């Protein structure tokens, strides 16, 4: 069931964009030094949480206050000091998001007890209209997500967009409460610097588990 026409057009688009970028800037260095799945990490931040300024590339530079599934204000830098697996999702997503969340639960089960103890999970909704903190609490209960280690966040559409931008997640509302979006799990080090992105569902989780254990 392949649609050659569509794929062909996408390939042309990618090429055109690459040429445009190359033409505009010559050779360019990539913003950030985030590795993709299979690579190794560079970040070596060992500061005691809260004692030093955030690294320049920390996602926690975004600031702002969210609301968690317990209805309490939540700043992203409250996760400082913990390795974090973060993803964007939405509660009414029937197809892929439950699998993605399940992937993260499997990842959690692969960690040794010490790594499990220190790791936190961050799930942020694309859909603040439907996913109220109450709905996020129900979602967490239904999926047996321990509130001590799993944080589900509700924010303004602007906050969600900014977070998606720094995590490199593309998304688009397609009407009727549905979203078309990248499936991405991002591992953040203890200072909130992205160490690893993994795209797609049902990816091999052992490299994530190894990375997470080292962060």
């Amino acid at each position: 069931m392949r649609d050659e026409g569509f794929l062909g057009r996408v390939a042309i688009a990618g090429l055109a964009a690459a040429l445009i970028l190359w033409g505009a800037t010559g050779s360019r260095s990539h913003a950030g030094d985030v590795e993709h799945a299979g690579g190794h990490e560079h970040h070596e931040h060992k500061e005691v949480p809260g004692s030093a300024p955030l690294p320049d590339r920390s996602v926690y530079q975004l600031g702002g206050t969210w609301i968690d599934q317990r209805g309490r204000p939540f700043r992203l830098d409250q996760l400082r000091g913990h390795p974090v697996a973060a993803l964007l999702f939405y509660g009414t997503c029937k197809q892929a998001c439950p699998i993605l969340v399940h992937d993260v639960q499997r990842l959690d089960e692969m960690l040794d007890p010490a790594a499990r103890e220190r790791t936190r999970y961050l799930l942020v909704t694309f859909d603040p209209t439907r996913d109220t903190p109450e709905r996020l609490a129900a979602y967490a209960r239904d999926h047996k997500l321990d509130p001590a280690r799993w944080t589900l966040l509700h924010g303004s559409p602007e906050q969600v967009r900014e977070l998606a931008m720094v995590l490199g997640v593309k998304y688009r509302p397609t009407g009727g409460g549905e979203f078309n979006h990248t499936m991405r799990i991002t591992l953040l080090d203890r200072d909130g610097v992205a160490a690893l992105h993994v795209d797609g569902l049902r990816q091999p989780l052992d490299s994530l588990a190894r990375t997470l254990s080292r962060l």
Partner: protein
Amino acid sequence: MARIAGGVYRPFYPVEGEKTARVAPFDLDVAAVTNGKFLAFVRENSRWRRPRVSRLLAEEAYLSDWRGDLDLGPKADPQRPVTFVSWFAAQAYCRSLGKRLPMEAEWEMAANPYPAGDPRSRAVTEEILRFYSRPRGELPRVGVLAPNALGLRGMHGVIWEWVEDFNASLVSADSRQERDRERERFCGGAAVGAKDVKDYATFMRFAFRGSLEASYALHHLGFRCARSVP
């Protein structure tokens, strides 16, 4: 700013089930934001000066054609569009004035106000393609550009422009596997194809947006601001 009437926008890359989007009336800057205006913003907002800005929000090339942190120098004419600005910087500038970046649907409607198939729409497309195929030298000053039918200057032919939701463009472009794998990477299924594959100019614009990240600061990428009509 110019008042844009709004109306029904047909997404260039509809996904399954997505037909049209209603665009409410909005105001759009008549011209791109200039170096001179951006300098005034940077003076007021020190966290957007080159040495202060977070690498999370703007890559190294940010404002790299300015001579100094608060000095435009010979390469950045105050009347020419500011470029080498990231999406975050563009957004912060607009917010500082109580404005915002235009949504992609808004920008596209303002860029070509004629319905698809209208001969005037074809003329716009041809003009854009001429722009895309031309090597770009020095940017023109924003005031000298001829306005389009809506009074907007330089919507095509000068720079690429940031839109608020550029990360919604061509959402599936970077997964070039067969469809089954692609479905696994995107919730809700992949795009089913462009509404008008002959509109190569629009295609390039969407491909370009799809290739961006919000911290990028590029030579020919600037912006203008929008405002919702209360």
